[in-house]
Protein backbone atom coordinates (compact mmCIF):
# COMPACT_ATOMS: atom_id res chain seq x y z
CA UNK A 1 0.00 0.00 0.00
CA UNK A 2 1.34 3.41 -0.99
CA UNK A 3 0.47 6.82 0.46
CA UNK A 4 -0.39 8.94 -2.54
CA UNK A 5 -0.87 12.65 -3.22
CA UNK A 6 -3.03 13.36 -6.28
CA UNK A 7 -2.38 16.63 -8.12
CA UNK A 8 -4.87 17.64 -10.81
CA UNK A 9 -6.95 20.74 -11.45
CA UNK A 10 -9.83 18.56 -12.61
CA UNK A 11 -12.02 17.27 -9.81
CA UNK A 12 -13.36 14.63 -12.20
CA UNK A 13 -9.89 13.26 -12.82
CA UNK A 14 -9.02 13.38 -9.12
CA UNK A 15 -12.15 11.43 -8.23
CA UNK A 16 -11.66 8.78 -10.92
CA UNK A 17 -8.00 8.31 -9.98
CA UNK A 18 -8.76 8.31 -6.25
CA UNK A 19 -11.44 5.64 -6.65
CA UNK A 20 -9.12 3.39 -8.65
CA UNK A 21 -6.30 3.78 -6.12
CA UNK A 22 -8.50 3.16 -3.08
CA UNK A 23 -10.21 0.16 -4.69
CA UNK A 24 -6.76 -1.33 -5.17
CA UNK A 25 -5.67 -0.89 -1.58
CA UNK A 26 -3.73 2.38 -1.74
CA UNK A 27 -4.22 5.37 0.51
CA UNK A 28 -4.87 8.81 -0.96
CA UNK A 29 -3.49 11.12 1.71
CA UNK A 30 -4.15 14.37 -0.08
CA UNK A 31 -5.29 16.19 -3.20
CA UNK A 32 -3.88 19.35 -4.75
CA UNK A 33 -5.46 21.49 -7.44
CA UNK A 34 -2.38 23.07 -9.04
CA UNK A 35 1.41 23.08 -8.88
CA UNK A 36 1.68 25.55 -6.01
CA UNK A 37 -0.82 23.60 -3.94
CA UNK A 38 1.12 20.42 -4.76
CA UNK A 39 4.39 21.78 -3.37
CA UNK A 40 2.73 22.86 -0.17
CA UNK A 41 0.91 19.52 0.29
CA UNK A 42 4.09 17.59 -0.58
CA UNK A 43 5.97 19.33 2.24
CA UNK A 44 3.08 18.85 4.64
CA UNK A 45 2.14 15.23 3.88
CA UNK A 46 5.40 13.59 2.75
CA UNK A 47 3.68 11.12 0.36
CA UNK A 48 5.30 7.92 -1.00
CA UNK A 49 4.10 8.79 -4.51
CA UNK A 50 2.77 11.94 -6.21
CA UNK A 51 0.58 11.72 -9.31
CA UNK A 52 1.06 15.04 -11.12
CA UNK A 53 -1.10 16.36 -13.93
CA UNK A 54 0.85 18.42 -16.46
CA UNK A 55 -1.67 20.96 -17.76
CA UNK A 56 -2.85 23.05 -14.81
CA UNK A 57 -3.46 26.74 -14.20
CA UNK A 58 -1.40 28.84 -11.74
CA UNK A 59 1.61 26.49 -11.88
CA UNK A 60 1.81 23.57 -14.27
CA UNK A 61 2.96 20.07 -13.42
CA UNK A 62 6.44 20.38 -14.92
CA UNK A 63 7.27 23.42 -12.81
CA UNK A 64 5.90 21.73 -9.69
CA UNK A 65 7.91 18.58 -10.46
CA UNK A 66 11.15 20.59 -10.64
CA UNK A 67 10.43 22.25 -7.31
CA UNK A 68 9.49 18.97 -5.61
CA UNK A 69 12.69 17.35 -6.86
CA UNK A 70 14.63 20.27 -5.36
CA UNK A 71 12.95 19.59 -2.00
CA UNK A 72 13.51 15.82 -2.17
CA UNK A 73 15.51 14.40 -5.04
CA UNK A 74 14.31 10.87 -4.36
CA UNK A 75 10.62 11.82 -4.57
CA UNK A 76 8.56 9.49 -6.72
CA UNK A 77 6.50 11.62 -9.07
CA UNK A 78 4.30 10.02 -11.71
CA UNK A 79 3.27 12.49 -14.41
CA UNK A 80 -0.31 12.41 -15.60
CA UNK A 81 -0.90 13.58 -19.15
CA UNK A 82 -3.55 13.64 -21.74
CA UNK A 83 -2.23 11.55 -24.62
CA UNK A 84 -0.23 13.58 -27.12
CA UNK A 85 2.04 15.41 -24.70
CA UNK A 86 5.16 13.45 -25.64
CA UNK A 87 7.49 16.45 -25.57
CA UNK A 88 6.41 17.28 -22.05
CA UNK A 89 6.86 13.68 -20.97
CA UNK A 90 10.46 13.77 -22.23
CA UNK A 91 11.01 16.98 -20.22
CA UNK A 92 9.40 15.44 -17.16
CA UNK A 93 11.72 12.41 -17.29
CA UNK A 94 14.66 14.81 -17.58
CA UNK A 95 13.48 16.63 -14.44
CA UNK A 96 13.18 13.37 -12.48
CA UNK A 97 9.67 11.92 -13.02
CA UNK A 98 9.72 8.17 -12.48
CA UNK A 99 6.77 7.23 -14.69
CA UNK A 100 3.80 8.66 -16.52
CA UNK A 101 0.11 7.86 -16.80
CA UNK A 102 -2.08 8.84 -19.71
CA UNK A 103 -5.66 10.03 -19.70
CA UNK A 104 -8.29 8.74 -20.10
CA UNK A 105 -7.41 6.57 -17.11
CA UNK A 106 -7.27 2.81 -17.31
CA UNK A 107 -7.28 1.03 -14.00
CA UNK A 108 -4.76 -1.67 -15.00
CA UNK A 109 -2.23 0.84 -16.27
CA UNK A 110 -2.45 2.91 -13.08
CA UNK A 111 -2.16 0.02 -10.68
CA UNK A 112 0.62 -1.60 -12.71
CA UNK A 113 2.71 1.56 -12.49
CA UNK A 114 2.01 2.32 -8.83
CA UNK A 115 2.83 -1.24 -7.80
CA UNK A 116 6.01 -1.16 -9.85
CA UNK A 117 7.44 2.00 -8.29
CA UNK A 118 6.23 1.87 -4.68
Amino acid at each position, binding site marked *: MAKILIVD*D*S*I*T*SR*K*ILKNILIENGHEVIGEAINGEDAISKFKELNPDIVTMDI*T*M*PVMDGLEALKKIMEINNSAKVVMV*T*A*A*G*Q*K*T*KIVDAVKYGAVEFL*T*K*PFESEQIIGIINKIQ
Partner: protein
Amino acid sequence: MFGLYFGDYLLEKNKISHDQLDEIMKEQTSRAKLGVIAVAEKLLTPKQAEELNDLQKKVDSRFGDIAIEKGYLLPEEVNYLLTLQGNPYLKFIQALIDMNIMNLDEIESCIEDFKNDYGLSDTELEALKSGDIDRIIPVFIDNNIPFAGDCISLVIRNIIRFINNNILIKKSYKVNKYSFPSIAYQQLVGSHELFVGLAGEDEALLNIASPFAKEKFLVMDEEAFDSVCEFINCSNGLYASKIITDDIHIDMTPPKFDKNKTMETEGEIHVVPIIICGKRTDLLVVVDKKVEIY
Protein backbone atom coordinates in the same frame (compact mmCIF):
# COMPACT_ATOMS: atom_id res chain seq x y z
CA MET B 1 -27.53 4.40 -35.32
CA PHE B 2 -29.72 4.01 -38.44
CA GLY B 3 -32.62 3.18 -36.12
CA LEU B 4 -32.24 6.56 -34.41
CA TYR B 5 -32.24 8.42 -37.73
CA PHE B 6 -35.05 6.47 -39.32
CA GLY B 7 -37.03 6.40 -36.07
CA ASP B 8 -36.67 10.15 -35.77
CA TYR B 9 -37.89 10.52 -39.35
CA LEU B 10 -40.89 8.24 -38.79
CA LEU B 11 -41.79 10.26 -35.70
CA GLU B 12 -41.55 13.51 -37.63
CA LYS B 13 -43.82 12.09 -40.34
CA ASN B 14 -46.29 10.82 -37.72
CA LYS B 15 -45.81 7.25 -38.87
CA ILE B 16 -45.07 6.12 -35.32
CA SER B 17 -45.61 7.48 -31.82
CA HIS B 18 -42.95 8.22 -29.18
CA ASP B 19 -44.10 5.17 -27.22
CA GLN B 20 -43.82 2.97 -30.28
CA LEU B 21 -40.31 4.24 -30.99
CA ASP B 22 -39.27 3.51 -27.40
CA GLU B 23 -40.71 0.00 -27.76
CA ILE B 24 -38.93 -0.54 -31.07
CA MET B 25 -35.60 0.50 -29.58
CA LYS B 26 -36.14 -2.01 -26.76
CA GLU B 27 -37.31 -4.74 -29.18
CA GLN B 28 -34.11 -4.66 -31.16
CA THR B 29 -32.47 -7.42 -29.19
CA SER B 30 -33.53 -10.23 -31.54
CA ARG B 31 -31.72 -10.95 -34.79
CA ALA B 32 -33.33 -10.00 -38.08
CA LYS B 33 -35.03 -12.81 -40.00
CA LEU B 34 -33.58 -13.91 -43.30
CA GLY B 35 -36.65 -12.89 -45.31
CA VAL B 36 -36.49 -9.33 -44.00
CA ILE B 37 -32.78 -9.10 -44.74
CA ALA B 38 -33.24 -10.52 -48.26
CA VAL B 39 -35.87 -7.89 -49.09
CA ALA B 40 -33.81 -5.10 -47.56
CA GLU B 41 -30.87 -6.23 -49.66
CA LYS B 42 -33.18 -6.40 -52.70
CA LEU B 43 -32.42 -10.07 -53.31
CA LEU B 44 -36.10 -10.97 -52.87
CA THR B 45 -39.29 -9.02 -53.47
CA PRO B 46 -41.62 -8.64 -50.49
CA LYS B 47 -44.02 -10.99 -52.28
CA GLN B 48 -41.36 -13.69 -52.67
CA ALA B 49 -40.40 -13.36 -48.99
CA GLU B 50 -44.03 -13.71 -47.98
CA GLU B 51 -44.42 -16.79 -50.18
CA LEU B 52 -41.35 -18.39 -48.60
CA ASN B 53 -42.61 -17.53 -45.10
CA ASP B 54 -45.92 -19.24 -45.89
CA LEU B 55 -44.08 -22.27 -47.25
CA GLN B 56 -41.87 -22.43 -44.17
CA LYS B 57 -44.96 -22.74 -42.01
CA LYS B 58 -45.96 -25.88 -43.94
CA VAL B 59 -42.60 -27.66 -44.27
CA ASP B 60 -39.96 -28.37 -41.67
CA SER B 61 -37.16 -26.56 -43.43
CA ARG B 62 -35.08 -23.42 -43.02
CA PHE B 63 -35.97 -20.24 -44.87
CA GLY B 64 -32.64 -20.19 -46.71
CA ASP B 65 -32.95 -23.81 -47.85
CA ILE B 66 -36.46 -23.21 -49.20
CA ALA B 67 -35.31 -20.08 -51.02
CA ILE B 68 -32.47 -22.04 -52.68
CA GLU B 69 -34.82 -24.90 -53.56
CA LYS B 70 -37.28 -22.48 -55.17
CA GLY B 71 -34.43 -20.93 -57.13
CA TYR B 72 -34.93 -17.50 -55.53
CA LEU B 73 -31.53 -17.35 -53.86
CA LEU B 74 -28.09 -18.87 -54.45
CA PRO B 75 -26.33 -20.66 -51.57
CA GLU B 76 -23.70 -17.87 -51.53
CA GLU B 77 -26.46 -15.27 -51.23
CA VAL B 78 -27.97 -17.11 -48.26
CA ASN B 79 -24.54 -17.22 -46.60
CA TYR B 80 -24.12 -13.49 -47.19
CA LEU B 81 -27.57 -12.74 -45.73
CA LEU B 82 -26.75 -14.80 -42.64
CA THR B 83 -23.75 -12.56 -41.97
CA LEU B 84 -26.10 -9.55 -41.80
CA GLN B 85 -28.42 -10.90 -39.11
CA GLY B 86 -26.88 -8.83 -36.31
CA ASN B 87 -26.88 -5.57 -38.30
CA PRO B 88 -28.64 -2.83 -36.23
CA TYR B 89 -30.48 -1.44 -39.26
CA LEU B 90 -32.00 -4.82 -40.04
CA LYS B 91 -32.86 -5.40 -36.39
CA PHE B 92 -34.73 -2.08 -36.44
CA ILE B 93 -36.67 -3.14 -39.54
CA GLN B 94 -37.41 -6.51 -37.96
CA ALA B 95 -38.78 -4.80 -34.84
CA LEU B 96 -41.09 -2.62 -36.99
CA ILE B 97 -42.49 -5.75 -38.60
CA ASP B 98 -42.72 -7.82 -35.40
CA MET B 99 -44.68 -5.02 -33.73
CA ASN B 100 -47.05 -4.85 -36.72
CA ILE B 101 -46.27 -1.17 -37.23
CA MET B 102 -45.37 -1.55 -40.90
CA ASN B 103 -44.96 -4.27 -43.46
CA LEU B 104 -41.97 -4.64 -45.75
CA ASP B 105 -43.55 -2.73 -48.63
CA GLU B 106 -44.37 0.23 -46.39
CA ILE B 107 -40.88 0.21 -44.89
CA GLU B 108 -39.27 0.18 -48.34
CA SER B 109 -41.38 3.14 -49.38
CA CYS B 110 -40.60 5.08 -46.16
CA ILE B 111 -36.86 4.45 -46.56
CA GLU B 112 -37.07 5.84 -50.10
CA ASP B 113 -38.86 8.97 -48.78
CA PHE B 114 -36.31 9.26 -45.94
CA LYS B 115 -33.47 9.11 -48.44
CA ASN B 116 -35.04 11.79 -50.65
CA ASP B 117 -36.07 14.10 -47.81
CA TYR B 118 -32.60 13.94 -46.23
CA GLY B 119 -30.98 14.39 -49.65
CA LEU B 120 -28.92 11.23 -49.18
CA SER B 121 -27.17 9.47 -52.03
CA ASP B 122 -27.33 5.65 -52.29
CA THR B 123 -23.80 5.46 -50.87
CA GLU B 124 -24.72 7.70 -47.93
CA LEU B 125 -27.82 5.65 -47.18
CA GLU B 126 -25.72 2.48 -47.29
CA ALA B 127 -23.24 4.10 -44.90
CA LEU B 128 -26.05 4.81 -42.42
CA LYS B 129 -27.37 1.27 -42.72
CA SER B 130 -23.91 -0.19 -42.15
CA GLY B 131 -23.75 1.21 -38.62
CA ASP B 132 -20.03 1.85 -39.26
CA ILE B 133 -19.20 5.19 -37.65
CA ASP B 134 -16.24 5.74 -39.98
CA ARG B 135 -18.66 5.66 -42.90
CA ILE B 136 -21.43 7.58 -41.14
CA ILE B 137 -19.39 10.62 -40.03
CA PRO B 138 -18.58 11.82 -43.58
CA VAL B 139 -22.31 11.78 -44.41
CA PHE B 140 -22.84 14.68 -41.99
CA ILE B 141 -19.46 16.32 -41.73
CA ASP B 142 -17.14 17.65 -44.33
CA ASN B 143 -14.07 15.60 -43.46
CA ASN B 144 -11.93 17.76 -45.66
CA ILE B 145 -12.04 20.79 -43.37
CA PRO B 146 -8.32 21.48 -43.18
CA PHE B 147 -6.87 20.25 -39.91
CA ALA B 148 -10.23 20.18 -38.07
CA GLY B 149 -11.94 17.32 -39.94
CA ASP B 150 -10.00 14.63 -38.08
CA CYS B 151 -10.48 16.41 -34.75
CA ILE B 152 -14.26 16.55 -35.22
CA SER B 153 -14.35 12.87 -36.19
CA LEU B 154 -12.30 11.96 -33.15
CA VAL B 155 -14.52 13.88 -30.73
CA ILE B 156 -17.57 12.06 -32.15
CA ARG B 157 -15.83 8.68 -31.84
CA ASN B 158 -14.88 9.52 -28.26
CA ILE B 159 -18.48 10.50 -27.43
CA ILE B 160 -19.50 7.07 -28.70
CA ARG B 161 -16.65 5.42 -26.77
CA PHE B 162 -16.94 7.23 -23.43
CA ILE B 163 -20.38 8.86 -23.28
CA ASN B 164 -23.14 7.15 -25.26
CA ASN B 165 -23.09 4.85 -28.26
CA ASN B 166 -26.58 5.88 -29.38
CA ILE B 167 -26.04 9.35 -30.73
CA LEU B 168 -27.48 11.18 -33.68
CA ILE B 169 -25.27 13.51 -35.71
CA LYS B 170 -26.91 16.23 -37.77
CA LYS B 171 -25.46 18.01 -40.80
CA SER B 172 -22.66 20.36 -39.78
CA TYR B 173 -22.70 24.02 -40.75
CA LYS B 174 -20.56 27.14 -40.37
CA VAL B 175 -21.16 30.48 -38.61
CA ASN B 176 -18.87 33.22 -37.33
CA LYS B 177 -20.93 34.11 -34.28
CA TYR B 178 -22.53 31.67 -31.86
CA SER B 179 -24.49 32.32 -28.67
CA PHE B 180 -24.70 29.62 -26.04
CA PRO B 181 -26.46 28.97 -22.73
CA SER B 182 -23.49 26.88 -21.52
CA ILE B 183 -20.14 25.86 -22.94
CA ALA B 184 -17.07 23.82 -21.97
CA TYR B 185 -14.08 24.43 -24.21
CA GLN B 186 -10.37 24.10 -24.65
CA GLN B 187 -7.85 25.94 -26.79
CA LEU B 188 -4.94 24.15 -28.35
CA VAL B 189 -1.79 26.00 -29.31
CA GLY B 190 1.34 25.17 -31.28
CA SER B 191 1.83 24.38 -34.98
CA HIS B 192 -1.88 25.14 -35.32
CA GLU B 193 -4.41 26.80 -33.06
CA LEU B 194 -7.63 25.03 -32.38
CA PHE B 195 -10.71 25.85 -30.34
CA VAL B 196 -12.83 22.84 -29.38
CA GLY B 197 -16.03 23.31 -27.40
CA LEU B 198 -19.24 21.55 -26.45
CA ALA B 199 -22.19 23.90 -26.02
CA GLY B 200 -25.88 23.58 -25.30
CA GLU B 201 -28.56 23.79 -22.68
CA ASP B 202 -27.57 22.46 -19.25
CA GLU B 203 -29.81 19.44 -19.73
CA ALA B 204 -27.86 18.48 -22.84
CA LEU B 205 -24.42 18.93 -21.28
CA LEU B 206 -25.49 16.83 -18.30
CA ASN B 207 -25.78 13.93 -20.76
CA ILE B 208 -22.03 14.23 -21.24
CA ALA B 209 -21.00 15.19 -17.70
CA SER B 210 -22.68 12.30 -15.88
CA PRO B 211 -21.49 9.34 -17.98
CA PHE B 212 -17.93 10.68 -18.25
CA ALA B 213 -17.52 11.19 -14.50
CA LYS B 214 -19.59 8.06 -13.79
CA GLU B 215 -21.59 10.20 -11.39
CA LYS B 216 -25.18 11.39 -11.63
CA PHE B 217 -25.22 15.19 -11.82
CA LEU B 218 -28.58 16.93 -11.50
CA VAL B 219 -27.40 20.45 -12.35
CA MET B 220 -24.53 21.89 -14.37
CA ASP B 221 -22.52 22.97 -11.38
CA GLU B 222 -18.76 23.38 -11.32
CA GLU B 223 -18.15 19.64 -10.98
CA ALA B 224 -20.41 18.80 -13.91
CA PHE B 225 -18.65 21.40 -16.08
CA ASP B 226 -15.32 19.98 -14.95
CA SER B 227 -16.38 16.58 -16.24
CA VAL B 228 -17.26 17.95 -19.69
CA CYS B 229 -13.99 19.94 -19.71
CA GLU B 230 -12.04 16.81 -18.83
CA PHE B 231 -13.76 14.85 -21.57
CA ILE B 232 -12.70 17.52 -24.09
CA ASN B 233 -9.18 17.49 -22.64
CA CYS B 234 -8.89 13.70 -23.03
CA SER B 235 -10.30 13.81 -26.53
CA ASN B 236 -7.94 16.58 -27.59
CA GLY B 237 -5.04 14.68 -26.05
CA LEU B 238 -5.85 11.69 -28.21
CA TYR B 239 -6.02 14.02 -31.21
CA ALA B 240 -2.68 15.62 -30.39
CA SER B 241 -1.22 12.16 -30.09
CA LYS B 242 -2.57 11.25 -33.53
CA ILE B 243 -1.25 14.28 -35.40
CA ILE B 244 2.18 14.23 -33.80
CA THR B 245 2.99 11.43 -36.25
CA ASP B 246 2.64 14.04 -39.02
CA ASP B 247 5.09 16.24 -37.10
CA ILE B 248 2.30 18.62 -36.04
CA HIS B 249 2.80 19.63 -32.43
CA ILE B 250 -0.02 21.13 -30.44
CA ASP B 251 -0.39 21.60 -26.73
CA MET B 252 -3.50 21.80 -24.60
CA THR B 253 -4.27 24.79 -22.41
CA PRO B 254 -6.41 24.26 -19.29
CA PRO B 255 -10.05 23.79 -20.36
CA LYS B 256 -12.64 26.39 -19.31
CA PHE B 257 -16.39 26.79 -19.10
CA ASP B 258 -18.80 29.68 -19.42
CA LYS B 259 -22.51 30.53 -19.44
CA ASN B 260 -24.85 32.77 -21.42
CA LYS B 261 -22.34 34.38 -23.73
CA THR B 262 -21.49 34.73 -27.40
CA MET B 263 -18.38 33.57 -29.18
CA GLU B 264 -17.17 35.24 -32.34
CA THR B 265 -14.33 34.73 -34.76
CA GLU B 266 -13.04 36.26 -37.96
CA GLY B 267 -12.85 32.76 -39.31
CA GLU B 268 -15.47 30.03 -39.22
CA ILE B 269 -17.04 28.20 -36.34
CA HIS B 270 -17.79 24.66 -37.48
CA VAL B 271 -20.96 23.59 -35.70
CA VAL B 272 -21.80 19.90 -35.47
CA PRO B 273 -25.14 19.20 -33.76
CA ILE B 274 -25.02 15.96 -31.78
CA ILE B 275 -28.16 14.56 -30.19
CA ILE B 276 -27.60 12.54 -27.02
CA CYS B 277 -30.66 11.12 -25.24
CA GLY B 278 -32.88 13.50 -27.23
CA LYS B 279 -30.96 16.65 -26.24
CA ARG B 280 -28.83 18.67 -28.61
CA THR B 281 -25.23 19.54 -27.88
CA ASP B 282 -23.19 21.44 -30.47
CA LEU B 283 -19.60 20.52 -31.06
CA LEU B 284 -17.81 23.75 -32.00
CA VAL B 285 -14.45 23.87 -33.71
CA VAL B 286 -12.46 26.88 -34.90
CA VAL B 287 -9.15 26.51 -36.70
CA ASP B 288 -6.27 28.99 -36.67
CA LYS B 289 -8.39 32.01 -35.81
CA LYS B 290 -8.74 33.95 -32.59
CA VAL B 291 -12.01 33.36 -30.74
CA GLU B 292 -13.52 36.08 -28.64
CA ILE B 293 -16.06 35.26 -25.95
CA TYR B 294 -18.19 38.11 -24.56
